[in-house]
């Protein structure tokens, strides 16, 4: 399976976790300027993208468009690429790139096929995704496919769509998965501290009651 990997505005955490995927013997990395020397984009099965798109940085947009053309499927890796994540807090005018101000998730710029959130996306989920893709396990891939429709996801969405909607069963998996421990279980229900939330969407994707939606074929807007 031929894969490409490009890194936009991110911290590299996702790429470091992605390195483990390369140990799978059927994976051939054909393009990744950060890891291998090949400088021209190749035809590939999957084009992985991590990081959000800096709209002032024309190269980001042009390479994404080219990647879309050359890859059968585009997969966003990590919360920045999927839902904006921590780059949703960018204000611009910061050194060293004072001109860089506007950051958007990849699905706002090109068509994306699957989104794997996480801050960073975990090694295990990346491996499981690639294995399922390799085997053509559509059922397993469905939640990732549906998540593409979500352009932003934070603890607030969990609060609004699950807890306030009366769907929360109080399992606590959101609190367990939050990378910054912004969720505390109070009286059996999650309480999100929005001042801590980095808008990674992990809790939102994780929640088993949300999986009811994410597992549906042709789920509408989620």
């Amino acid at each position: 399976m031929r894969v490409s990997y490009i890194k936009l505005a991110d911290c590299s955490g996702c790429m470091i976790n992605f390195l483990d995927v390369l140990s799978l013997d059927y994976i051939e990395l054909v393009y990744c300027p950060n890891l291998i020397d090949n400088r021209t984009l190749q035809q590939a099965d999957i084009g992985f993208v991590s990081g959000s798109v800096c709209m002032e940085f024309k190269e980001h947009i042009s390479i994404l468009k080219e990647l879309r053309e050359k890859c059968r499927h585009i997969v966003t890796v990590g919360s920045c690429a999927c839902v904006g994540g921590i780059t949703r807090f960018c204000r611009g005018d910061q050194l060293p790139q004072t001109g860089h101000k506007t950051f958007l998730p990849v699905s706002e710029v090109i068509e994306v096929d699957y989104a794997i959130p996480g801050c960073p996306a975990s090694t295990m989920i990346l491996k499981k995704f690639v294995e399922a893709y390799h085997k053509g396990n559509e059922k397993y891939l469905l939640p990732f496919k549906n998540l593409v429709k979500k352009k932003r996801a934070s603890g607030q969405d969990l609060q609004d769509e699950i807890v306030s909607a009366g769907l929360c069963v109080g399992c606590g998996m959101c609190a367990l998965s939050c990378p910054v421990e912004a969720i505390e279980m109070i009286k059996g229900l999650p309480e999100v501290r929005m001042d801590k939330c980095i808008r990674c969407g992990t809790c939102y994707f994780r929640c088993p009651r949300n999986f009811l939606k994410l597992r549906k074929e042709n789920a509408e807007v989620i």
Partner: protein
Amino acid sequence: MYSEYFGEYIKILKVRSLKKGLGATTSYLAYCLDAGVIEGAIVVKATEHCKPEAVVARNSEELRATIGTKWVTIPLIDAIIDALRIERMDKVAIIGTPCQCQAIRDIKEYPMQLGDIFERITMIVGLFCMGSFTQDGFKTMLERKFGITLPEIVKADIKADKFVVYLRNGKIKELPIDEVKGDIKFACLSCDDFTAKSADISFGNAGSSNGWRSAIVRDESVLNLLSAAADAGYLEYRPLEQDGITEIEKMARDKAARAAQFK
């Protein structure tokens, strides 16, 4: 075999404990702990006044303290962290309601968090469930419907069509089950899983009586464990009669129909 109401399963049995003071579920778990199949079991224990607390049971003695139905569901995460992160156990069983089993199955299938902690949950044990209360909801229900406060009760149970509470002063109060139904958690109304379809084995009262518990086995290794537990004198089991299966199916169908209204 597959059934809409039982999930993907191998066998439907009825199980009875042969250990004094243990139920079918706890006998099975006690065997697993004693035989070293698991190092710990994450269970909910009712502390004083029916207030539940998630704990890690490391042996059958600790398990014994957790017997009985809990009417309130609580997050198991504190016990999960104790067992997996702090004590670093490698083989842990988790016992929970269908929604909790579903949560654990999801987190095992889609490991979003870093690290491998959920790989080390090696067995999921489900309990049949028609609904549960929140701690506050349970308290309010007792006050409004039974006119008693939480500290007064020692135990609550379902007997036939009655919700029965046992008081500290020895008295017993009961109400038809339909009258307390309206007080269960709102989330339970949209839950369509009665038999914990994502568990490796599920236990429940429905379909069995006289000390027997129904059990739906979904994993070959669990079946072997049951037979080993029977050989070791912890429990006995037989195939569940058709009547029992029909009864479970009926309850599962009722629950699914209730949830369908919320879809």
